[in-house]
């Protein structure tokens, strides 16, 4: 993780500790995805900043743009499931690396903040498409 990114994290932690700026809830964990708008799909063209392989949801940070001429900004993207399920779909913790050029389709937060729920990703260099679809899990023998 880059030092600049760490500084942002520290800033976030500091801000969260200030009265009136309670950005961080005491516990979050499993949550509904209703705050993401399923009717809207945003296409984020950018570069992977970090990919975090954690439960209950893996997280992805991408710096990119959603329209031509826009200044690149940092988006926080939540994958809708966990490393266990992702592994059964063929993902690994190495599926994405910092610096990878990607195009991510996501359902954005309804309030306009730069967060979203992962829908689909295309690796620009290889054309590989990454999906998160519980229906595909796993690709071994399907139930009869």
């Amino acid at each position, binding site marked *: 993780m880059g030092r600049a990114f760490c500084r*942002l*994290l*520290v800033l976030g932690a500091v801000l*969260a500790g200030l009265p009136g700026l309670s950005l*961080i809830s005491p516990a979050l964990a*499993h949550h509904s995805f*209703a705050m993401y708008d399923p009717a809207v799909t945003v296409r984020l063209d950018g570069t992977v900043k970090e990919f975090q392989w954690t439960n209950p949801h893996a997280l992805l940070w991408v710096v990119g743009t959603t329209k031509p001429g826009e200044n690149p900004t940092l988006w926080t993207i939540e994958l809708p499931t966990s490393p266990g399920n992702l592994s059964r779909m063929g993902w690994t913790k190495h599926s994405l690396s910092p610096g990878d050029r990607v195009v991510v389709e996501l359902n954005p937060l309804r309030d306009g903040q730069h967060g979203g729920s992962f829908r689909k990703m295309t690796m620009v260099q290889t054309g590989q498409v990454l999906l998160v679809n519980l229906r595909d899990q796993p690709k*071994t023998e399907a*139930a009869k």
Partner: protein
Amino acid sequence: MRLRALLVVVGLAFAAPLRAGETAVAASAPSARDWAELAKLPDWSGVWTPLPPAVTGKPPAHAGQWVESEPQWRPEAARQIAALEAEEAAGRPHNIYLNCLPEGMPSFMIMTLNALEILFTPGRVTILGEFDGNRLRRIYTDGRAHPADPDLTFNGHSIGHWEGGTLVVDTVGLLPEVFLPLGQGVGLPNNGDMHIVEHIRLAGPDLLQDDLLITAPHMLAKPWAYTRKFKRHRGAAADIVEASCRQGDFVEQRDEAGNAVFAPLPHDAGGAPLPLPTGK
């Protein structure tokens, strides 16, 4: 001799007396025959992943989740559910699992999106979950009854018996705060006296079916019948992994001393991770 007699008296004093409705459970070690008997049970080995709605044949009733039959709520509960559904639809979910307390039953079986595995040992069936911090259910199949006055817990007290290839499980002793769930943002506490009966069986070579009948007299007008199906996978690629409840609420980083630490991430009120403040 006096010392031996004293030890017997002390031992009796500490032995838990049986209460009404309780049966004695063998305290001896399982025999070779007990272990051999397990081979007669159906093969439920492997890793079981819950089936999505397209396979169970029903559309999702709530965002990201699915139910196969809608519960018949009592009027006051129905009013609350309608309000929660409206909030969910408006993007303001009232999350029911946000505090990382165990989801409990019936969520353990009907709400999980993660894998299960099931172990048979003499007198016990153990269901290990990947969801929810790898929590587990213990189902006693040694013939015991429920305790007369069980300590209330999230997964309750479960006893089971085999009817052919079907494991029949009876669960009581559930905390009143444990939810009747329709989704991660829609659900109500059972408010006490919940009772769950399950019939778990192989419905195909690699298909496990759990038919649940959930009775919650303070919230449901009639028992809620619900079926959840799981498909089987074998091999290391499908192995269940360690799953903590809250690790994703943090970001991995190094502190000023170079130690690997978890730093909290900002989230919105509904639990979605937010972009970090840029300071710009």
